[in-house]
């Protein structure tokens, strides 16, 4: 199982802070999440900042990054203003 945590506007749209699902890769995970949450589209998820156990998928293998049991995936929108 992979734990997914939503942050920022995505969280407000999904109306939940997170979910636990079975997924073998980021691309697979995003499809599952889009089907699960009506407020969140696949396009929106693919345009989020995504981290696996604190590492940006930009520093891993992007959407092809593999997921293992117990991984935590954090999904953000780019932010500004402080």
């Amino acid at each position, binding site marked *: 199982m992979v734990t997914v945590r939503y*942050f*920022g*506007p995505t*969280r*407000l749209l999904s109306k939940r*802070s997170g979910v636990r699902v079975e997924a073998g890769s980021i691309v697979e995970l995003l499809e599952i999440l889009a089907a699960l949450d009506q407020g969140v589209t696949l396009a929106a998820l*693919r*345009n*989020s*900042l*995504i*981290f696996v156990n*604190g590492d*940006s*998928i*930009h520093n891993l293998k*992007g*959407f092809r990054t593999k997921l293992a049991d117990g991984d935590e995936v*954090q999904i*953000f*929108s*780019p*932010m*500004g*203003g*402080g």
Partner: protein
Amino acid sequence: MATEFGGYMGKVLKINLSDRSVSEYPWTDRDREMYLGGKIMAAKILFDSLASGVRPFAPENLLVVTTGPLTGTGAPMSSRFNISTLSPQTGLIASSNCGGDFGLHLKRAGYDGLVITGKSPGPVWIEIWEDEIKFNDAGDLWGKTTQAAQAMLGGKNGKIVIGPAGENLVKYAGVFSNERTAGRAGAGAVMGSKNLKAVVAGGSRRPLLADESAARKLFKEWSAMLRAHPITGEQLPRLGTAGLVSIMNVRKILATRNFRHGQFNDFEMVSGEMLAEKHLIKNRGCTTCPVQCGRRVEVRGKNVKGPELETLVLLGSNIENNSLERILEWNWLLDELGMDTISAGGTIAFAMELNEKGLWKNGLEFGRTDNLAGIFEDIAYRRGIGADLAEGSRYLSEKYGGKDFAIHSKGLELSAYEPRRAVGQGLGYAVSNRGGCHLNAGYVVLLEGLSMSINPQTTRAKAEMNILFQNLMEAASAAGICLFSLYDFIFPFLLRRPNSLLSRLVNKSMTYLGPSLHVINRLKRSPLPVNLPQLPHPEAVRHVTGMKVDLLALKTIGERGFNLERLINIQRGLTADQDSLPKRLTEEPQDPNDPGTVVPLGKLKKDYYQARGWDSGGRPTEKTLRGLGLTGGK
């Protein structure tokens, strides 16, 4: 000094509290073209008027309240005013920008600014109604909290007030207008030192605009653009500035446990998401602002102003407090008492670590929150340990030790961003004219992990990025516009498509653009006007004032302002050594297994001084000053 430019009221009022005299401060159209308004105008007035050796609490110190040409014109995000003075925290220039509506009402009274000097023999408040200026006894207002004082002053005029903290010269006391705060660097304490409790301004005058129809059309388009941008149209309205806590945590830049760490286990409990889900009543914001980033929140049955990001961090993760309710209560309490939540939180965190290390037994502990409301009151009234805490981190480190982990620069406590994973922001903190401020720093952290994902550890191009952002922010502030208007600088596609090839290419390549940015930074004029469609600031200034400015001209005014503040600081004894950060941030890696997780300040500073056209001692060279029209002394 009437003006031929639109947007201005053409008059700056000088008020001497010692003899209660009122006169006009000479401010010409040439000054307006050179310094525009706001903080740059204030810097010029301070540069010209402050005698050397004047201390922050001396009657001769000036409190300069200024507006910009766009203030009160109906331009979006234009409800801003600035307060500059000598800071009791740093001994250097303090500039503090504020929303609220005082600037707007000051212009309705017929003034672009106030220059307040002297010291009243007893508590006083000033009433400005067009040509009528009254000095009123403030005996019944003295001791009142900021909201109580404003309620007693009544009416729909603009007000600035101080609370008990300002009256008692707490070094980080702020100035308050409605629920907005000119919080940083202690202008409230300077007001208190002058026995000035409040200034009220109002009238029925309006600034004339050079090209009213073009200006109104632009304002409408600009508002629509701000509403359509991912940051100013979506994130800030939905989550306010508080929305940054979570992404700061994953980027390891969330100040935690007195800046020992960049992540907080309980970050979600003090996040913007939690604020929105559990406490938000409605958005709130300044007049003429389409963004409305302020919050009204509910806590224990009370409807109060919500905290900004900085407050959530400095009173949350940085003291290891995971109670959002406590932060909401303290935020309100600190506003009522009249002090800056950033410096208050930073000072408390430092005192906690002093206690932990046995250097000062004070009863303050990380994670312990039950005693802090009382401590904040003690600070405001300088009771018990509050008397020491009221002096701030630098004073505490000189008295009790711990300079290596006293998290300030030039005496001003750092704001929420832990810079060891955002070294450009670290450089900015060190070279900022007002000390450890994230905004005067240049706010490069925006690119280093908040909005974009450029390499946060490299020193490449960070000096040039800082300079560009600092100059643009100076100019926007001087125009009277909120700095958040500059977020539109970032093309929406970079925010909406952060995983696209193009976005990733931009992020990768930006740190190789130092030489190009340097050319842009040095460019002061071009044969053809240079503008960017997403930054309509020059066009707004053109339509409002009639000045022929483009983006380069505006940027140059910003550069002039930054250098002018630097000159004031040098006059006050600033040396390169004070462009510093505590050793915790420059020598103690955030990740003990990665020695690179420090701020390499020596290299960054050298790059920055060179790129600014300053010598190795951090002084603007003669050539630089000449290029900015700042030679020739006063």
